């Protein structure tokens, strides 16, 4: 079992500058990973006996409009060694693209589809990158902070006079 510093040191030894400094404290301490290397880092994190991250606990996205980036966050857990690790990658907001990790953990397939659907991040190498929640012909990506709700969808107005909407 490793603590966050141990996980970070192990990744740093293997990938050097592709791994950023350890930030934060406790279980949620995280490290930035070079976006181009994320699939390799994840493969190593799963296969390395000292890390043995056999579970992708969570894959999520964060939009940062001021910094012009979208973050993809990977929460990893090792059932065998019972330790956690958090990786983050940044990708430009105007052309977001990150290598898929669905080849490492098949469980990543649907979360990646969800991040693609709601943030527009294209996961290179994903076997089936379609929208997961929204309709196929939905305009835009709703969890981006500058998303504007369409006035209507297939003739269905999206507004209604109500107490909540003065």
């Amino acid at each position, binding site marked *: 079992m490793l603590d966050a510093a141990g996980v970070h040191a192990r990744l740093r030894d293997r990938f050097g500058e592709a791994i950023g400094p350890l930030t934060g404290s406790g279980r949620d301490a995280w490290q930035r990973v070079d976006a181009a290397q994320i699939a390799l880092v994840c493969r190593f994190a799963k296969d390395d006996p000292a890390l043995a991250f056999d579970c992708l606990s969570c894959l999520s996205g964060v939009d940062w409009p001021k910094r012009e980036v979208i973050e993809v966050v990977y929460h990893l857990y090792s059932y065998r060694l019972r330790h956690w690790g958090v990786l983050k990658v940044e990708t430009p907001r105007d052309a977001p693209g990150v290598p898929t990790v669905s080849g490492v953990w098949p469980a990543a397939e649907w979360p990646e589809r969800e991040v693609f659907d709601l943030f527009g991040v294209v996961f290179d190498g994903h076997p089936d990158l379609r929208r997961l929640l*929204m309709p196929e012909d939905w305009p835009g990506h709703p969890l981006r902070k500058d*998303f504007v*709700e369409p006035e209507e*969808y297939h003739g269905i107005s999206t507004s209604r006079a*109500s107490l909540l909407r003065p």
Partner: protein
Amino acid sequence: MSLLNTAPEMAITTRVDDLLNWTRKSSVWYMMFGLACCAIEMMQTGGPRADLERFGMAPRATPRVSDVLIVSGTLTLKMALRTKVLYDQMPAPKYVVSMGSCANCGGLFQLAYSVCDGVDKVIPVDVYVPGCPPRPEALTEGLVKLQAKIQRERWLVRAPETA
């Protein structure tokens, strides 16, 4: 035994409309169509405690033989288009019960980007049942109200007089 002699005692008179409507309202089949938490209450309504079957209502798994569509739960825009398709597949005469705040007006989620604010934007609604979610008693009352509406319908109308 002569049936002729007893026939006058058995006779009941009614209007054809009333008889037709009485048979129709006594076998209203609802479609198994659950969208969200309201669907749990709808299942409870169909269960032995609230027992919708005492009103002649049975769940059907296909729109082709259903009489009433109970829209039970939050209707997303994606589902709204599919709901329209299901409604179009039901044979007329058909009825729609909007169950719960979400189906009525979008409810708690009406400001969400993905939610259709009320099923009446897509298909015509006969009975609105308020509540979040409505108790089985409330849905039962809504369906009894629907039965009352069916009983009042007029099918045989005199042709308009021509000049």
